[in-house]
C-alpha cells in the first residue's frame, strides 16, 4: 500500500479522493496493535490517533471515532492471526505462542496480504524468516524447515494438477531428449530436521485437544495432552509433500531419488537427471523409483524451469 495522505480528504468527489480515503483508513486498519492489543495512540506522523480518526470517522453517542476505528483494527489482526495460526500449527508448537505471535506480527506488518484469499497468507513466510533470523533465534533453521513444510502442505492441498504423462509417450522419446515436469502440487524438501513426523505428532496432539474439549472430563485429558511434542533433533530428511486421491501425503526420498526429481523439476533431460543420482544408484533401484512416481501421477509435461526444491 502506498503511503497514506497526511489527512483524509474532507470531500470525496472523485475516484482519486476515494483512493486517498481508502489509503488512509486501510493504513490505520492494518497497522499493528499496541502492546495491549489496542489501536496505537499515535499516528505514523506522531499526531494523536484520536484526532486523526476524528478527521474522517464520526463518533456516536457510545463510541468515539478512535474506538470505532479500533474495532476494525482489532478485527483485522484477530482474523489474520487466526488464519496464520491455523496454517502453521507446527511453527506455533516449535516456537511457542509468544515467539510465534511476535513472528506473525512482524511478518504481517511487513508483508500484508497481497492476495484475494487468506490461503496465500504464508506464501512469503519462509523468505521472511530467512531475512529476519533474529525473530526465530535460536531456532531459525528449524523454523525455516517447518514453515517450508507447512507451506508445501497448502500447495499440495489445492495446487494445480496437470495431465499426467502416459508411460507410452515416455517410450517414444529418447532419454537424451526427454524432459518431464513435476506436478505443481508436489514440493521437494531438503530438510535439516524430520519435520514430517514432527508435524504429524503436533496434529495428533491438536486432534486430541479438540476431542478433549468435547468430553465431560476435558480438564484432565487436556492437561495431559497439553504437553507439546518435543522439538525434533537434527537429521537430514528428504521428503516430497504431495497428494493422492486428494489426500495429503509425505513421501521420504533417498538422496539419489531426490536428486533425480530435483534435476527433472529443474528442466534436465531424463539422461542427465538419472546421472544426477550418482554412480552408486543401481539401475533396478532407479527403475523402481520411476515406477512408483509414475503410479503416483507425479509427472506432467514440463512447464517453466524454476526449481521445485526447497530447503
Amino acid at each position, binding site marked *: 500500500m502506498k503511503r497514506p495522505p497526511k489527512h483524509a480528504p474532507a470531500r470525496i468527489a472523485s475516484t482519486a479522493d476515494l483512493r486517498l480515503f481508502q489509503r488512509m483508513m486501510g493504513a490505520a486498519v492494518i497497522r499493528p496493535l499496541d502492546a495491549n492489543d489496542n489501536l496505537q495512540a499515535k499516528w505514523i506522523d506522531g499526531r494523536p490517533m484520536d484526532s486523526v480518526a476524528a478527521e474522517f470517522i464520526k463518533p*456516536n453517542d457510545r463510541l468515539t471515532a478512535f474506538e470505532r476505528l479500533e474495532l476494525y483494527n482489532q478485527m483485522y489482526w484477530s482474523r489474520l492471526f487466526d488464519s496464520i495460526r491455523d496454517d502453521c500449527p507446527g511453527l506455533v508448537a516449535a516456537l511457542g505462542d509468544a515467539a510465534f505471535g511476535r513472528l506473525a506480527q512482524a511478518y504481517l506488518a511487513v508483508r500484508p496480504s497481497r492476495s484475494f*484469499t487468506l490461503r496465500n497468507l504464508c506464501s512469503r513466510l519462509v523468505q521472511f524468516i530467512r531475512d529476519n533470523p533474529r525473530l526465530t533465534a535460536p531456532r531459525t533453521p528449524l523454523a525455516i524447515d517447518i514453515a517450508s513444510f507447512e507451506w508445501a502442505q497448502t500447495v*499440495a492441498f489445492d495446487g494445480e494438477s496437470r495431465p499426467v504423462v502416459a508411460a507410452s509417450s515416455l517410450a517414444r522419446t529418447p532419454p537424451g531428449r526427454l524432459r518431464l515436469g513435476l506436478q505443481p502440487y508436489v514440493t521437494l524438501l531438503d530438510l535439516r530436521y524430520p519435520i514430517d513426523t514432527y508435524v504429524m505428532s503436533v496434529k495428533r496432539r491438536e486432534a486430541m485437544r479438540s476431542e478433549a474439549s468435547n468430553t465431560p472430563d476435558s480438564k484432565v485429558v487436556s492437561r495431559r495432552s497439553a504437553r507439546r511434542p518435543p522439538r525434533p533433533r537434527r537429521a537430514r530428511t528428504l521428503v516430497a509433500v504431495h497428494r493422492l486421491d486428494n489426500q495429503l501425503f509425505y513421501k521420504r526420498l533417498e538422496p539419489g531419488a531426490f536428486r533425480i526429481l530435483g534435476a527433472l523439476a529443474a528442466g534436465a533431460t531424463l539422461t542427465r537427471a538419472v546421472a544426477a543420482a550418482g554412480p552408486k544408484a543401481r539401475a533396478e533401484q532407479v527403475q523402481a523409483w520411476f515406477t512408483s512416481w509414475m503410479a503416483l501421477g507425479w509427472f506432467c509435461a514440463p512447464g517453466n524451469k524454476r526449481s521445485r526444491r526447497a530447503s
Partner: protein
Amino acid sequence: MPANRFNGHSDYGIGIGLRVPHYSHILSKKPVVDWFEIISENFMVEGGRPLELLDKILEQYRVVQHGVSMYFGSADKPDRTHMRRLKNLVKRTNTPWLSDHLCWGSVDGTYTHDLLPMPYTFAAARRTAEKIRQVRDFVEVPICVENVSSYAEFHASEMTEWEFLSEVVELADCGILLDVNNIYVSSKNHSFDPYDYLNNIPHHRVGQMHVAGHTKFEKYILDTHDHPVLDPVWKMYAHATKLCGVSATLLEWDDRIPSFDEVHNEALKANEFIDGAKKAVV
C-alpha cells in the same frame, strides 16, 4: 420478486451456506435442501480436494456463488486474473446469479480481508457502479450486491446508506442481496430506523435475502453469524418479504456451527414468514 432478471429468473427457495463441518453429513445423508450458497473464493483454486468436493455437491444440489473479495467499492481497478478465476467457477457451478458486497477492502493491491464500509458519496457510487458493470459484463451472469453491517460512519458521506445502495444499483442496473440482519446491526450501531431502510430501497431489484444471527456488546452489535436469527430480524424479514416478494433466502451461520439439521431447521423458519407475507398479499 420470486424470479427476476437479477437472480436469473430463478425461484430457489430457502438455502444454507455450504460449510466444512457439514460436508460429510451432506455427502453421506444427502439431505433435501433447496440450494447451497458457496463462498466463491474457497473454490477459486487450481485443484485438489475443494474442487472434488464441489463437483460432488453439484451432482446433487443447486449452488449459488457468494463472494467476499471483489470489493466493488475499492478505488482499484478490477483484477482481470481474479475475474477470470471467478468466471471459470461460474462455468463450473452454473450459478444463476452471483453476489458480493457493497464495500471495499483492498487498496493498492493490499487486502484487509474485511468488508469495510463505504463513504456514501455520489463519486463513490459512480465508481462502484462502474466496477459492478465491468465485472458483470466479464462473468456474464447477473450480480446482486449485498449491504454490509458496519461499525463506523464517515464525515465525507453525502447520503444515507440506503440512498447510497439505491444509487449504486440504479447506476449499475444490478440486483440487491438484501441482508436483513446487516440492516438491523447497522441500525443499532448508527441509530437509524431499520424500517426506513427497508421502505426506501428499490424493492423490484431484490434478488436474494440473507438472515443471520448477531452478538450484542455493551456499546455495539457485531455481525457474528454464530447464533440463531433473533426475533427483530425475523420481523424485519417478514416486512421485507411483503415489500419485495418472496426471494431466495439464505441463513448464514459461519462460526460455532451446530449440526446440519439445526442450521437447516433454523433456515426453514423463514417459511413461517413467507407464508404470512403470501396471505397478506392475498
